[in-house]
């Protein structure tokens, strides 16, 4: 069912989900207002924006992530993997600034001391592949160096997950916003708002809409008391000496560390995962762990320049799964946790289908309803 152009929609929160939803709905020629608490002008450095989408590494890694989560995460992720190329090529046609999107797989490696973690990962991958047909290849040391000549010696076992992808998340965020503005999405930034069912409130303003989509992440706590922030720390470095073709995941007893190549010889290395809502700067311990991981993959990183150290809170629900909660006219999309780029396109597509009165394949795992009080 086509959406009626008379629909008046508010989207609160211009993070990844908010922008993607605004962009995709704007193609249906609806009247859309996009609210954002931060100021969104080109002078705001990306790492000073609150949305986790800016600091994220931008991996679309359904297998790697499902092993630490569950099958729902895998299915949402594979749907997103199928959707991203179309979204990116559309945006790249419309905007001069190009988004780098690459589906060249991820490489999983471990130090000899952490081989047990790699074996655990390998066993879990095999099991996932048995259920889903997911592709993976076991690698030896020479396979690894053939794929990534810049990985140092000492890594003799690995796994290639050939279908996984990664995206230049900052270029994407900028491109999405630019397209929204071109499509006449009304942007109200630098404005923190409250939501009361179908109304958006700030200062003396009371605006009513047909639907209000609440995409505020951790900012939506007042409506979702279960929501918690999970601290993640990342570094962004510049290193002209090293080249990688794909994200590298390094096994670690507490969390998977990853090193993701970005345009301009930049790399993002992350991420810690700490149960705390502390947003203060990176700890020395985390800095040591991230830097030594990077250095151990290639000692040339010793001369890399640290461009940014970022800390952000991933919005998570108790089961660490994404959820779309419908409460009359207020639709809350939240809990994307560490899976923003992995699940956002699948979620946005489900939400648009729902708005059109259809149920898509992921409806059951995403949607729940709350009676309006």
């Amino acid at each position: 069912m086509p959406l009626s152009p008379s629909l008046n929609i508010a989207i609160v929160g211009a993070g990844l989900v908010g922008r993607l939803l605004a962009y995709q709905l704007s193609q249906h020629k609806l009247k859309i207002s996009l609210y954002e608490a931060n100021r969104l002008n080109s002078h705001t450095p990306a790492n000073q924006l609150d949305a986790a989408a800016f600091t994220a590494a931008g991996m679309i890694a359904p297998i790697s992530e499902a092993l630490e989560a569950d099958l729902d995460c895998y299915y949402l992720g594979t749907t997103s993997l199928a959707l991203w190329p179309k979204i990116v090529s559309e945006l790249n046609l419309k905007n001069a600034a190009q988004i780098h999107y690459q589906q060249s797989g991820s490489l999983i490696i471990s130090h000899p001391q952490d081989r047990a973690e790699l074996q655990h990962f390998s066993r879990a991958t095999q099991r996932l592949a048995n259920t889903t047909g997911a592709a993976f290849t076991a690698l030896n040391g020479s396979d690894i160096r053939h794929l990534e000549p810049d990985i140092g010696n000492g890594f003799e076992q690995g796994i290639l997950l050939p279908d996984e992808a990664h995206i230049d998340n900052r270029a994407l965020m900028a491109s999405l916003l630019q397209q929204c503005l071109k499509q006449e999405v009304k942007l109200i930034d630098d404005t923190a708002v409250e939501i009361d069912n179908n109304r958006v409130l700030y200062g003396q303003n009371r605006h009513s809409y047909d639907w209000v989509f609440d995409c505020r992440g951790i900012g939506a706590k007042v409506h979702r008391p279960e929501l918690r922030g999970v601290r993640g720390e990342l570094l962004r470095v510049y290193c002209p000496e090293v080249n990688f073709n794909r994200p590298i995941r390094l096994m670690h007893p507490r969390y998977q560390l990853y090193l993701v190549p970005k345009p301009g010889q930049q790399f993002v290395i992350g991420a810690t995962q700490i149960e705390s809502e502390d947003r203060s700067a990176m700890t020395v311990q985390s800095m040591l762990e991230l830097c030594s991981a990077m250095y151990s993959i290639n000692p040339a990183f010793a001369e890399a320049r640290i461009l940014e150290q970022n800390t952000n809170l991933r919005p998570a629900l108790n089961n660490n799964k994404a959820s779309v909660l419908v409460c009359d006219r207020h639709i809350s999309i939240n809990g994307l946790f560490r899976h923003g780029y992995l699940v956002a396109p699948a979620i946005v597509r489900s939400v648009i289908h729902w708005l059109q009165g259809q149920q898509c394949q992921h409806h059951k795992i995403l949607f729940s309803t709350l009676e309006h009080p």
Partner: protein
Amino acid sequence: MQHSDTLTLYDTSFNSRFLLGTALYRSPTQMSEAIKASGSEFITLSLRRQNPEQSDGDAFWQLIKETGCKLLPNTAGCKSAKEAINLAEMSRELFATDWIKLEVIGDDYNLQPDPFELVIAATELIKRGFKVLPYCTDDLVLCLRLRDAGCQVLMPWGAPIGTGQGLLNKYHLQSLRERITDIPLIIDAGLGSPSQAAAALEMGYDAVLLNTAVAKADDPVLMARAFSLAISAGRSGYLAGLMQRRQTAAPSTPVLGQPFWHQQ
């Protein structure tokens, strides 16, 4: 004959002999379900990599409190007595408990406890009114020193943390149990499978503490249940009195009436 068989640690009684850690689960929901399935009443948590000064909306702490279990904060990651003492004081304030699992690590490679710093920290914390449960090696003299310092529970390792190697030095662990009979001993760390936990209880250990073996299982909830059953089995086995091992076979039924070729 049914005894009430409770575990008493510093004058507090527990029905469960399973102490479970709260790290490494895939989600808080899974953690809560695993704790429930384990029947554990006493759970450990680490303060180390958090920022306790920021108490604003600490949703994760809240979830842990909602399990209804008694909390045992630990000093994971500390490498000196001084660090451990400071962290213990912070934990006491934050969690309003004077119980502390004392961990002072002496070696980064196998996370082996530092026996020297451990005794210093234990002595000081007990003076300050803490109920100290030290994570220690299976060295008899170290254990005696910790007991002399006033620890009323000792927690020797089965194997290094997170290795899943089980009871590596059964001889040491057995002599510890035989020499130290007046206070509870808990196997802390290194257990990988339920049968290893059962073996610890059969040997007369009072309880086990573990985390990774459950949290990193493919199905942590089922694994928590498996450990719980193994711990009960091991404890019952110990209470029932294990038979003595013998060198030669002793038939359980008389063999006199059997034809001779059946006796070969």
